[in-house]
C-alpha cells in the first residue's frame, strides 16, 4: 500500500486481511438496533400468529379464507394503494420537474416539500377536516362565494375518495423528493442528441426520457405503494372504521373489548408479505424490460 499523504475520505480504503477480520465489529451497533427493534418484534408477531389460546394452530391464517371481511379489507388496501401510488407519481412527476428547474428557489421548495413528511398521519387527517370538513375553512369559503351545500360538498372526505386525496398529501412529496434527485442525475445530452436527430417530443419522451427515469420511477412508486399499504392514522381520523383497510382491521383486533392479538398478528404478517411480494414482483417485471 503506497500512499502519498493521508488517505482522503472519498478514497476507497483498503484493509489487509488481519484488519478485515475485525471489520464486522463496525456493523455491530446497527446490527444490534435492527435485531432488538425490528427483527425481534417481527419474530414475535410471526410466532404469536400461530397460536390460538395457547395451542399451535393455523386458524388465524385459515380465517382469511373464511371471513369475507379480511379478504375484502385486503382488496380495499391493495386497490387504494395502487390507485394512490399511481396518482402520486403521475401528479408528483411534473411538480418534481418544476422544482428541479426552479433555480434559486429549489432549496426552499425542497424544504417545503419535506414538511408534510414530518407530520403524523393523524394530524394530516385532522388537517383535512379543518380545511375541507363540513365546517372547514375552504368549505365555508366556497359556501359564501358559490353557495354550495357544505354537507354535500364535504361528504366525499369521509369516504375512500377522501382517503385518496389525503394520502396524496403525503405521497406526492415523496415522489417529488425522489424524482428531483433523478432529474439532477439525468443525462441531458441524451435528450439533445435525440432532438438533433429530428425526434419529436413524444418520441423523445417515450424512447429516451422514460427509460432514463425508469429506475427512479420504479423505486419511487414502490415506496409510495408500501407507505400507502401501511398508512393508518389518516384513515383513522377521516373515516374511522367505515373504510375497511387492512391496517384498520388489525387495529380493531388490538383495541376492541374482544381483543384478538393473535389474529391481528396473522393479519400483520399477511400485510407485510403481500406488500413485499407486490413490490418484488413489480420491480422484477419492469427490471426485465429495461436492460441494465
Amino acid at each position, binding site marked *: 500500500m503506497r500512499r502519498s499523504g493521508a488517505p482522503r475520505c472519498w478514497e476507497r480504503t483498503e484493509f489487509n486481511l488481519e484488519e478485515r477480520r475485525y471489520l464486522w465489529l463496525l456493523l455491530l451497533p446497527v446490527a444490534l438496533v435492527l435485531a432488538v427493534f425490528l427483527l425481534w418484534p417481527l419474530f414475535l408477531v410471526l410466532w404469536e400468529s400461530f397460536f390460538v389460546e395457547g395451542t399451535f394452530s393455523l386458524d388465524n391464517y385459515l380465517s382469511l379464507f373464511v371471513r369475507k371481511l379480511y379478504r375484502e379489507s385486503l382488496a380495499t388496501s391493495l386497490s387504494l394503494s395502487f390507485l394512490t401510488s399511481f396518482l402520486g407519481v403521475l401528479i408528483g412527476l411534473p411538480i418534481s420537474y418544476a422544482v428541479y428547474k426552479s433555480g434559486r428557489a429549489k432549496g426552499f421548495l425542497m424544504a417545503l416539500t419535506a414538511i408534510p413528511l414530518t407530520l403524523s398521519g393523524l394530524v394530516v387527517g385532522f388537517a383535512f377536516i379543518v380545511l375541507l370538513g363540513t365546517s372547514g375553512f375552504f368549505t365555508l369559503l366556497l359556501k359564501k362565494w358559490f353557495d354550495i351545500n357544505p354537507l354535500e360538498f364535504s361528504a366525499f372526505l369521509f369516504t375512500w375518495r377522501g382517503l385518496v386525496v389525503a394520502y396524496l398529501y403525503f405521497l406526492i412529496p415523496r415522489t417529488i423528493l425522489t424524482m428531483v434527485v433523478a432529474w439532477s442525475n439525468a443525462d441531458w*445530452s441524451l435528450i439533445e442528441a435525440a432532438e438533433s436527430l*429530428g425526434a419529436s417530443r413524444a418520441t423523445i419522451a417515450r424512447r*429516451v426520457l422514460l427509460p432514463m427515469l425508469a429506475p427512479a420511477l420504479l423505486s419511487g412508486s414502490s415506496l409510495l405503494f408500501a407507505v400507502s399499504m401501511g398508512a393508518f392514522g389518516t384513515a383513522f381520523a377521516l373515516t374511522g372504521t367505515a373504510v375497511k383497510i387492512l391496517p384498520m382491521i388489525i387495529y380493531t383486533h388490538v383495541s376492541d373489548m374482544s381483543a384478538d392479538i393473535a389474529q391481528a398478528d396473522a393479519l400483520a404478517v399477511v400485510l407485510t408479505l403481500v406488500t413485499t411480494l407486490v413490490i418484488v414482483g413489480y420491480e422484477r417485471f419492469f427490471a426485465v424490460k429495461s436492460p441494465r
Partner: protein
Amino acid sequence: MMGPERSVGVALEGIGKRYGSAWAVRDISLSVGAGEFLSIVGPSGCGKTTLLRLVAGFVRPDEGTVRLGEQPVNDVPVRERRVGLVFQNYALFPNMTLYENVAFGLKAQNRSATEVRRRTSDLLEMVGMADRAQSYPRQLSGGQQQRIALARALAVEPRVLLLDEPLSALDAKVRNSLRFEIKRIQRDSGITMIYVTHDQEEALSISDRVALMRKGALEQVGTPIELYSDPCSLFAADFIGVSNLLKGESDGEGGFLWKGHRFILETPVERGPASLMIRPERLFLAPEGVAGANVIEALVQGRVFLGPITRFSCNVEGEPLLLDLLNVAGAGLKVGERVRLHFEPSDSCVLQDLKETVPEGVN
C-alpha cells in the same frame, strides 16, 4: 453518399449571447465553407462550446444571425435544423442496441424500413462496428462508443456535423487514431464539420482552418500553418504550440532590443515595447567561431527527453530560452555547457503588446 441536400456552409454574423449581464460570446463573425473542417480552440470558459450550441440551436443568440447555407436559422428549432451532434460523453441511448442507436434518427424521421436497414448497416460498416450491432453501449470501450455516436449522427445525413470535445475523454492512443478516422470520414463524405477542442495540437493536425477564441471573442482565424507561424497576438503565440517570448523593444529601424542584444528583424516594425516570438525548433546552434546578428550566448540548464526531440532549457541572463534539437546521432548538449544560439530573421515574429493593454472587450 450524402442525401438530396448536400452539406452546407455555416455563417455567424455578429453573434452575441449574454447570460445575465455577462457576455458568453460577443461580436462573432465567422463563416465556414461547405465541406470545410473548422476547429474552434481556446482555454476553458472562452465560449467555444456556447458557439457550437448556437449553431446547433440549443442556445438562441441575443445578437446577430446564424445561417445554415443561405437560410437564417435563429428561429428554427434544433430538430428541424438537420445538424448532427457528437458529444464528449458519447450520449448513446443506454437502453438501445448499437443498431437501434444508429437507426434511431432514421426511424424518428419516418424513413422507409428498407432505407433504415440499408443506411444503418452502411454506417455501422463505415465505423467498423458492424459485428457489434446487437451489443449495448455499456459493453463498448469509449473509443467504440464514440464511433457509434459518429455513425448515429451521420445516419440522418445532417447538413453540418458539430463535435464538442469528442476525444477528450479517451486515452492518448485511441484519441490519436480516432482523430484521423474523423478526418477520413469528413473527407470521404464531404460534410461540413465544426470541431470544438481545448487541445490545440489536435486542432492543428486535422483542421482546414482553426478559430482561436479568447474570453468570448475570436482572437485569430486561419489555417493551422498561419496560426502556428504567424500568430496575431501574444495570447495566440502562447496558446498555439510552444514559444519563446522575449519581452523587449522595437527600435523602429528593423532592430529588436533585448538584454543588450540587437536582433535583426525581417521587416521593421513601429518603435515601442513588443515581444519577439521564436519557436524552440527555430533556434539553432550557431557554427563555431561565427559571430554576427541574432546570436545569443546561453548556458544549458536542463533537458527534457520528448522522443523525437529533446527540449533544452537555456539560461540567458536569468531568462529561460527553449531549444528543440532532433535526437539524431551525435546531437545533444550537456547540462552546464555554454552554447551560442542563432535564429533567422524570417523565423521570428514581433508581437506588439497592444492587445494586452487594451481593456477586454468582453464581460
